[in-house]
């Protein structure tokens, strides 16, 4: 996060605290996309994500006075968003996720790769992320259970550092790292299988 961005957030915070006209509009303009997307990636359902986003912004507006500047504004908002979404998920049936274990690399007894390994990195690197591959990554990510999904979305897609993700989720850094690694191993395997089927030209 750049210093400039931080300054902008400071200004916005101050205006929100004072209830300045247009402050809410500005908050929405800057963050509704991010918050809605984060909510979507956790809840995977547009109407749930919309309701969650409403709750998140209400909470932010109400609690802006209690926000202490010791963490970045956006990470505070992410935290509110993740909490709101996880509360919504609680009690809901969640059987539409895959078992991550089935996508972990397989090794022989003496710790060697059990199957041959293709290198598809060059093939994928050459072109910018096309729509199809992007959609597949989203789809595979959505199939992860939220335990891994939230960490992966915050760290690798949103680009938060492991420390920031740990703060947002109230987890330790090693726990974040281990979940993140497993999520990446899963996605790597999913992409391998998908590319092997030759759907990307």
């Amino acid at each position, binding site marked *: 996060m750049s210093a400039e961005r931080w300054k902008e957030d400071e200004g916005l915070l101050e205006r929100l605290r004072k209830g300045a006209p247009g402050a809410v509009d500005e908050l929405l303009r800057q963050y509704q996309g991010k918050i809605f997307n984060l909510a979507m990636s956790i809840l995977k359902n547009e109407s749930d994500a919309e309701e969650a986003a409403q709750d998140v912004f209400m909470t932010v*507006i109400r609690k802006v006075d209690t926000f202490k500047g010791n963490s970045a504004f956006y990470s505070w908002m992410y935290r509110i968003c993740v909490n709101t979404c996880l509360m919504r998920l609680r009690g809901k049936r969640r059987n539409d996720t895959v078992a991550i274990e089935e996508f972990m690399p397989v090794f022989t007894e003496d710790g060697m790769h059990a199957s041959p390994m293709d290198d598809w990195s060059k093939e994928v690197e050459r072109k910018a992320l096309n729509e199809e591959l992007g959609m597949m990554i989203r789809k595979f990510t959505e199939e992860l259970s939220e335990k891994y999904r939230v960490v992966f979305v915050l760290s690798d897609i949103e680009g938060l550092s492991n420390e920031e993700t740990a703060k947002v989720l109230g987890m330790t850094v090693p726990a974040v790292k281990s979940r993140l*690694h497993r999520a*990446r191993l899963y996605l790597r395997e999913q992409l391998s299988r998908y590319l092997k089927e030759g759907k990307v030209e």
Partner: protein
Amino acid sequence: MNCKELAYLLADYFDGSMDPRMRAELDGHMAMCEPCMNFAKTYRMTCRKASELRKCIEYKIPDEVRERLASFLVAATEKFPEQMEEYHLQVERERREKVLAFCRAAIEAKLSSMAALLVESHCANCRECKEYFDSVLKTRGLNGPHPEEIQEHVTRLMESLPPDEEFFLA
């Protein structure tokens, strides 16, 4: 180091947090092991494509959701001052009730020793409060609402009690 161990060290290897000796160890293994080299390359590419996704999904939010969100928040924040006022009134009501209870306890000599001491020392310095407490003690009854000043003083007295400590005798 075997392939399995290597696979579980890749995150540190790529985020730069691995110490150079360990790094050399991994490099050495990969130079000799094609599956691991390929595994590492595709692992890194997976991370890279995920972060590219951030730039190109650019937070699409359906227009109608955007509109509903804005109008919901505008409506909610307009109602917000009313709710705050309601809250302040509630706090004020509770404060009055508490002051009343305090004065009643004073009349019935049911104040805790600490609270009684506070009242005594305050009244020694405050003519209004002394007159007020003297008069209610004489008539042994509370006549109507307390003057605003007494309210304030009694509230402050109660606030100087330690938190969670009741002002009346058990």
